[in-house]
Structure formats: structure tokens, C-alpha cells
């Protein structure tokens, strides 16, 4: 057996836009041309940087940054070379974690064109506080009932995932369910997803942090217990047992 199974994906039941792990991805729109240097922070530790150029000459509408490349797990070496990405204006910076323990946030700083990363002009974005237009993608695997909350507000809602059933054909991944967050409310606030179906949160608030956490696991058939009393002992004397 040489299977490589992504245990972090199977074990993650707390998906948080403020602390990115496997199954939680964040897309941030970038409208104007410019150059940025991003600090990648895992927990409290700054584990690396990357440069991002919003370039009118670039044709790609999204820059995919796999934060697992910055994981401090011993077997993953820290990046020795600063990674560089580019994206077209009105495109997206997509931050995700393909494996590993995760727990990242990213701070995006604008720098003057052609200047070094040390010459930061201004902090433009911190993933711990979502901005309007941000898209948070939660790919829930563990069956059960989840609570979705805005950690920086009061919005709450529920998402349920059914226990997977054996199928004759491979499970089809349905189109994601889109959930908007506006006026500190999720809409819809009760969502029933199918297995593998993702929840895509479209943020319309100035400050938000979306968290989706498992509240009640569904154990499927393991949960089923026989109903009623299978056997009752009767006191042979006919008197009530004390």
C-alpha cells in the first residue's frame, strides 16, 4: 500500500475564513493595477511572503496560492525563494490549503512599483476581516449539522450534510450552494447540502469572518439503536423489583 490520503481534509470540521485550513478557500477581488507583498502567517508565526502583481498585461483572472507550501511542518521546507504571482485587474487572489494542518491568514501590503518588499506603502487587506466582494468557499465532508456564523457580527445559520449512501455510480459533485452575507444575515440561513456539494459564501459586509463548525455529527447506521426493550426481566415473586 502506498496510498497518500489527505487526512487533514477528512478530519477538518471547523472551517474558518480567518484561519484557513484544508477545505476552506478564500477569493479576494483585486480591481486596480498594482504590486503587493503578502505576509503569510500561520497561527502567530510569519512563515513567508509572496509577491503579487495586478497586471493589465496578464490574462489570468485568478492567482492561485496554495498556502500549504508555507506550512511549518518539519518535512515541508520553508520557501527559500519568494514566490511571485500575477493576475489581471478585476481578477481574484485565491488562497487555499491543499494539505497540512493549515491555520493561515494573509496580510496584503501594497508596495510602490519596482520597489523592494521592505518598502511597503500601506496595508491593504487582512484575510481575518473579509471585505465586500470576497468569496469564501467551504467544502464540507463530514456528515452532520454545522453552524455557520459571522465571528465579527451576529449572523448565524445551519448547514446539514447527509450521511453518504453507497451508490452504483460515482458520487457527482453538484453545483455549489451560494449563500450571501449581507446586513449581518446569511441568506439562506438554513441549507441542506448534498455530499461533496460546497457552500460558497458571497460576502457583502465591510467586516466579516465566516466560520462553519460541526455541531452534531451524523454517524449514519452506527447511530441507529434498536427501539423498545428487547428483553425484560420479571421478578419471579411477582413483586415489583426494588
Amino acid at each position, binding site marked *: *500500500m502506498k*496510498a497518500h490520503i489527505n487526512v487533514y481534509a477528512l478530519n477538518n470540521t471547523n472551517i474558518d475564513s480567518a484561519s484557513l485550513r484544508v477545505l476552506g478557500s478564500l477569493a479576494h477581488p483585486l480591481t486596480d493595477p498594482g504590486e503587493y507583498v503578502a505576509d503569510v502567517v500561520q497561527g502567530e508565526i510569519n512563515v513567508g511572503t509572496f509577491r503579487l502583481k495586478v497586471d493589465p498585461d496578464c490574462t489570468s483572472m*485568478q492567482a*492561485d496560492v496554495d498556502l500549504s507550501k508555507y506550512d511549518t511542518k518539519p518535512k515541508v521546507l520553508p520557501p527559500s525563494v519568494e514566490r511571485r504571482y500575477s493576475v489581471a485587474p478585476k481578477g481574484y487572489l485565491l488562497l*487555499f490549503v491543499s494539505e497540512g494542518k493549515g491555520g493561515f491568514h494573509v496580510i496584503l501590503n501594497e508596495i510602490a512599483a519596482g520597489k523592494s518588499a521592505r518598502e511597503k506603502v500601506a496595508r491593504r487587506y487582512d484575510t481575518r476581516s473579509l471585505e465586500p466582494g470576497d468569496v469564501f468557499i467551504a467544502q464540507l465532508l463530514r456528515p452532520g449539522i454545522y453552524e455557520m456564523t459571522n465571528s465579527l457580527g451576529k449572523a448565524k445559520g445551519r448547514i446539514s450534510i447527509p450521511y453518504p449512501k*453507497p451508490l452504483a455510480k460515482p458520487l457527482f459533485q453538484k453545483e455549489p450552494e451560494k449563500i450571501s452575507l449581507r446586513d449581518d444575515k446569511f441568506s439562506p440561513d438554513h441549507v441542506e447540502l448534498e455530499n461533496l456539494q460546497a457552500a460558497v459564501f458571497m460576502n457583502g459586509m465591510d467586516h466579516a469572518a465566516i466560520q462553519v463548525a460541526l455541531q452534531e455529527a451524523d454517524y449514519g447506521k452506527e447511530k441507529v439503536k434498536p427501539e423498545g426493550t428487547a428483553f425484560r426481566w420479571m421478578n419471579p415473586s411477582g413483586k415489583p423489583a426494588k
Partner: protein
Amino acid sequence: MNQVTVAISEETFRRLFATIRDHFHESTSGHSGGAFSFSWNIGVRLQNGSIDLQPDDSVRLSELDVVYDPLTLELGIDIPELCIGGFCIIPSPWGCILRAPKICIFSDNPDIRLALNLSGLLRSELSGAFSIKTRYRIDPSRTAGMTDLDAEDAGVPNKWRFHLDPIWLDIDLIDIPDTVGAILDAAINNAVDNLLFWLPGWARDLVKAILGSIVDLIRAILDIGDDIDEWLSNLLGVSIGLFDFVSTIVADYFANRYPVFEFEDPFPILGYEGIKIPVKIPVRNVSVTVNDAEMILDSDIGD
């Protein structure tokens, strides 16, 4: 010179054949690659079969069962990479503006190994026609200076041997019972459970649901299609070359290794009696003919 004729009835011939048939036991093992890797360990035995002496100086063998025991196959299969995500989040008339990342649950083409134990379940049927080949055997252990008496005392006398020399052999396709399909399916499920054994039940069920029918998936990887009989026959007959192996080894066994009948030369008439040495008669010019009732040996005796 005197001549002797000995006749062996068809019934006696059948008993002689049964004795050498029951001593037959050969095996083959090996491994091979390709679309999927496989290894095998196969033992071959012979059972049943009917012998008919023919008027044309030949012996007809029919319905000899070739029993494969043990018959174990191990198939190595790569389950394809299994990823989720990659769907479009923000579409546009010009293509997808934002696409979700792909997260892989399985990667690096995880291997599973299917152990199939089909011992005693499969049978082939072998038929053929043989002539009787006469051979004179001098035991390699007999030294040049030995007399016939010395050779008898040492247990290495010369012998006349009569082998079944194949004229043709047919081996029919394997008789595959319906249970083989169930055994394969159980092996697939066991292999996947072994691969995922350390995962919680829900994760195993989810992975199985993602893969769909794991049995169908692996059957497709193995290119089994609807007909497991044809697939297994092809695997054993073509990929492993089992039928060639059986035909060759059976032909060699009867033609060269084990005679259907043999006797010593010189032929012992009287054994040791007190101080008297044994009486032995040389046998020369042995010939064999077969008719539909008996096998007849003609020979000259004496010097």
C-alpha cells in the same frame, strides 16, 4: 531365440494409467506487469479421465480433469487520484472568472492488492491421443563395472519402459463456477477496506460513495467487462500461459518422466535361494502393439 508375448488388458492398462495420473503434481509461479501487475502461484493435479485402447495402435485419453490447487492470484491495481472542487464559482460568457481549487483526498495513485484464492474452484479438461513409446533405460547410477546382478543388488537394474507419447493434446477452456465473481467482488471490498481501515466509518463510506461502485471501478480498471469467465480465461491462458504450461508439462510427464509400465532387463525369474544366485533372462527386441482390447508386448528372450 525364444519369443515371449505378454498382453495387458484394457482394464489393467486403466489401472496403470490411474497410478501415474495420481502421482502427477506440478506447480508454476511468477509475476508480470502491464495495465495492472499480477503474480500467481498455481499447482496442477490430474483427476478422472477415461482410457480407451484403439485399434489403430494408439491410446485415447478423454475427459481428464486438470485441477488447479492451489490457485492464488494477486492483482496490483492503481486507484485513480481522487480530488474534489475545481467547480466554477463566477462564470462569464467568456469563460470562468473564478474557479474553486482542487483538493485531493487520494493522490499518488494509491495501490491496492487483490488476493484471489481460487484453489480447487477451476477445472480444465484435457483429451488426447498417445502412441506407446518403448525405451530402454540404463540407470545413470549404474557404474561401468557392474554386472546385472550387481545392478539388481544396488537397486539400479536396466529397464524396459513404456511411455505414453502424445500424438495430440486438447485442453478445453476452464470451467469457472459462478462463485468466482463473488470471490472477486469480496476481494475488492476487502482490499479497499484494508486501504481505508484506519479511517472512521463515515470517511470510508464517503470515499466509497465518491468512487461509486468500487467493484465496478476496479472491474473497469481490470477490463473485466460483463464476462468474468472470458477475462479469467484470458488472464490464465494468455497472460500467464497456463494452458501452454499444462499441455507441455503433462506431455513431458507421460512421454519422458513416468512410464505407464516397466520391467527389468534381464528379467528376474528366480530370486536368491540359499547359496543359489538369482535366475535372470535377458529381454531383447521389445515391440509394442495396441488393439482395442489390449496392449501386447513381443520380445525375444535369452542370449
